């Protein structure tokens, strides 16, 4: 009876202190947002912003009707785009396999030295977009397909490497133990214990990444790395918005088809 005064009359989900803390958190977020908004829009020219609907109408009017006669010219760049994505994926996977073997805790030869290096490679590759890689590579090895392929490959290392090393770490240790118990060397443990377990994951990840790479390779041409983006850039430079419509629709169709193919393949594998 003595502690009945401490029991509140009404039930509430949280205590007063947590409610206050949550409220303060929201207040801080709103304040931060307002401050960021002011800093960001400091240099904005509002006349351009208010003018935007008219500009949008103008561009929209020029984009229609699409110039369909431009379509046959786009087939060669489209083939190039597919090659950039596919060869880039192959290159990325080939480079990612050793990196992920070094990064996985159960296969790495040295946890202290090689594992951090491999993890840094993975993070660096993941945090730099393929468009930035392409921008760099175009200035280094010149414009063309090769720059695009290498850009896609470098970008894919991080993605494939991260997912693959997680798959390797999740392998069943009992199977590896069993192989080791037969007297197998390290290479044999890898081929008979680890590889069969991660092979389905590797295929799934590669096809998934290929699908993303198709998307990314369509815009690499904007910085000169070949493919259909080159045509997009050229059409926009001469303000041929009706050609831009055709290119965008073609890109959209390619992305949808590649997504469908990757979904079918992944369902067959997994």
């Amino acid at each position, binding site marked *: 009876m003595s502690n009945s005064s401490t029991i509140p009359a009404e039930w509430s989900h949280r205590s007063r202190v947590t409610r206050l803390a949550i409220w303060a958190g929201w207040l801080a977020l709103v304040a931060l947002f307002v401050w960021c908004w002011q800093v960001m829009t400091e240099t904005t020219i509002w006349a351009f912003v208010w003018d935007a609907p008219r500009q949008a109408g103008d561009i929209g009017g020029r984009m229609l009707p699409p110039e369909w006669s431009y379509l046959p010219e786009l087939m060669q760049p489209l083939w190039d785009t597919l090659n950039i994505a596919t060869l880039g994926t192959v290159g990325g996977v080939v480079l990612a396999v050793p990196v992920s073997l070094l990064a996985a805790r159960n296969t790495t030869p040295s946890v202290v030295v090689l594992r951090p290096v491999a993890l840094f490679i993975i*993070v660096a590759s993941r945090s*730099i977009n393929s468009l930035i890689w392409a921008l760099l590579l175009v200035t280094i090895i*010149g414009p*063309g397909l090769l720059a695009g392929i290498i850009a896609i490959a470098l970008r894919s290392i991080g993605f494939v490497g991260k997912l693959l090393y997680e798959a390797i770490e999740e392998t069943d240790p009992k199977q590896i133990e069993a192989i080791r118990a037969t007297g197998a060397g390290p290479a044999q443990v890898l081929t008979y214990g680890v590889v069969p377990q991660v092979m389905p994951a590797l295929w799934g990840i590669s096809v998934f990444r290929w699908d993303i790479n198709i998307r990314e390779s369509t815009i690499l041409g904007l910085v000169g790395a070949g493919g259909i983006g080159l045509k997009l850039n050229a059409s926009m430079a001469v303000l041929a918005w009706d050609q831009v419509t055709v290119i965008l629709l073609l890109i959209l169709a390619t992305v949808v088809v590649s997504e469908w193919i990757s979904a079918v393949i992944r369902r067959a594998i997994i």
Partner: protein
Amino acid sequence: MSSQYPTTWRRPPQVLTDRRWRIALQVGLLIYLVLAFGSIDVNWQRVSEGLERGQRFVMGFLQPDFMSRWRDISQGLIESLTMTLTSSVVGVMISVPIGIGAARNLVPRPVYLVCRSIVAVSRSLQEVIVAIFLVAMFGFGPFAGFLTLTFATIGFIAKLLADDIEEIDETQAEAIRATGASWFQLLNYAIQPQVMPRLVGLSLYRLDINFRESAVIGIVGAGGIGATLNTAIDRYEYDSAGAILLIVIAIVMVAEYSSSYLRKFLQ
């Protein structure tokens, strides 16, 4: 008889069990690879000229120059960071009603279809392409970048939120409904407690993605660190470019670790 047995074990094929299909697939792959490699047209002279530049870039990466362009870099970073935060907040605010509208178990069919098509449009258009159009409409600068990232955030958050709402535990919604709750009360007491932790997690993840993307859309004129990076590369100032890339990598790493820590803390 014993010589018939192979000495090493090989795993039998799993997916394509017919030998003829496997051969056809391998031959097809080979033909494709030959054709694809044939389509690469490399100007080796240009490559060898560029290798010296590549070496300078690697040197720039190893000895980054943070100081000489620090004003441009800090300006770009501030633009990128403010753009990231504002677009994430606005994007999440817009995507919550759209996400609720795109959940099949909450709304009538026409609303569902409209919201799902908004999500599909936002997801299928690439950030860079959207940025090109928005820069053409709204002029150069971070405001166009803010709009691009907001647009991309809507598709991402709304889709994952809608999928989440569709997968909630129906018994809890049923219990609230049985008390005679209205639609908004259902939302508040049955749906919101179940999806809130995940929504916070997704928003933090999107914040991380938006920062990465803000480095890219600057290349087409939408402001931020990408614009600074583009200028540095155009001027062949590889030491400044290396510094910018290192800063981007560092911020992404910090964002990734802190957001995964926060998500663990919240769940």
